[in-house]
């Protein structure tokens, strides 16, 4: 899922300060799961903004709304309707949701309340880990289901660098990271060893074709069988 984090309140306030009627638009899927943009967080931010603006001497008309998926046209329509009489919209979706909303409301300013971070996994309560870069050419089948592109700090394709210490990636030496970042290639080795498939490591991966990733401009997937 997409992981996002709320922007600092001051930054959000600055973006919308010149508007009086504001819609806060949440998304109840990915960013709700990571507790940054679902209907609860919409309610938190609405109350926080009302208070912050009052302290600055302004009374704002702030409405709240949320849909299951802000990045899907059919779900988005409720927000488009709710946004019709608003001066501005503050979206708590990921960047895809913000843009979908902006596309459907060409005459209304739409602002992001979140910083979209990465595609990740809920690894524990309050802990989300990046484990997919969307490289467009998945190699998890070769690496025991552990992605070296996202989980190795250097995105190495054929084994570890020389920096790992005690099973940990050397980036832990540069700054304190809690929990510590393990060496992805050690994890791959351990996993393949447990599966009895260490021979996979004898296959060298060729240089990656990054043209499947974000190096060749905006990507698109077209499925004629799904189209109207």
């Amino acid at each position, binding site marked *: 899922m997409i992981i996002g984090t709320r922007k600092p309140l001051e930054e959000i306030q600055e973006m919308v300060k010149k508007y009086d009627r504001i819609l806060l638009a949440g998304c109840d899927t990915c960013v709700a799961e990571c507790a940054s943009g679902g209907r609860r*967080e919409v309610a*938190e931010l609405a*109350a926080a903004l009302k*208070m912050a603006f*009052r*302290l600055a001497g302004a009374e704002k008309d702030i409405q709240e709304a949320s849909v299951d998926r802000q990045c899907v046209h059919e779900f988005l329509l409720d927000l488009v309707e709710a946004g019709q009489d608003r001066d501005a919209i503050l979206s708590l979706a990921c960047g895809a949701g913000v843009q979908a909303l902006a596309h459907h409301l060409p005459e209304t300013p739409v602002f992001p309340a979140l910083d979209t971070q990465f595609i990740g996994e809920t690894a524990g309560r309050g802990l989300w880990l990046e484990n997919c870069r969307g490289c467009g050419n998945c190699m998890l089948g070769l690496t025991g289901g552990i992605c070296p592109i996202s989980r190795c700090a250097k995105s190495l394709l054929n084994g570890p660098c020389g920096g790992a210490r005690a099973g940990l990636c050397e980036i832990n030496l540069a700054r304190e990271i809690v929990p510590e970042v393990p060496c992805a290639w050690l994890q791959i080795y351990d996993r393949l060893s447990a599966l009895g498939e260490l021979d996979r490591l004898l296959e060298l991966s060729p240089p990656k074709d990054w043209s499947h990733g974000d190096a060749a401009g905006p990507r698109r997937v077209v499925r004629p069988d799904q189209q109207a």
Partner: protein
Amino acid sequence: MSQKVTVVVMACQQAVPDPALFLGPLEKAGLRARVVLEPCSSKVEVFQMLRTLAGEADLLWVVGCPEQVCLLVEGSFRMTKRVAHAQDYLREIGLEPERLGMVQLPAGNQEILAATLSDIQDRAQALGVNPARAGAPLAKEQP
């Protein structure tokens, strides 16, 4: 205080079986008070705390049981985390985080109850009306 201070208490009903435990003394002290009984203090969400402070309260107190006797096992633990998160939000807003208080109150413990009531009255006296709540006079608009 020129305006009556409003205190909202959101309390676990195991810790506070009778709202009068708070209502009586707080009203007697000249405060306007409302007690919301909860099945557990962990049921109080961050957005409810912020909404309450934005809508009606000058002070908000969340009352739970001590962590080791919480009926929902980790309810009081979660309440502590949520109150801390809401206080962080208040700092960002520019409002005193002391307007949001919490206590772990063993049911029937008169000593901690009295100390809590005294703490609430002291903070009401020190902080006064919440300038960020609805109905409070607006600060002079900034450019």
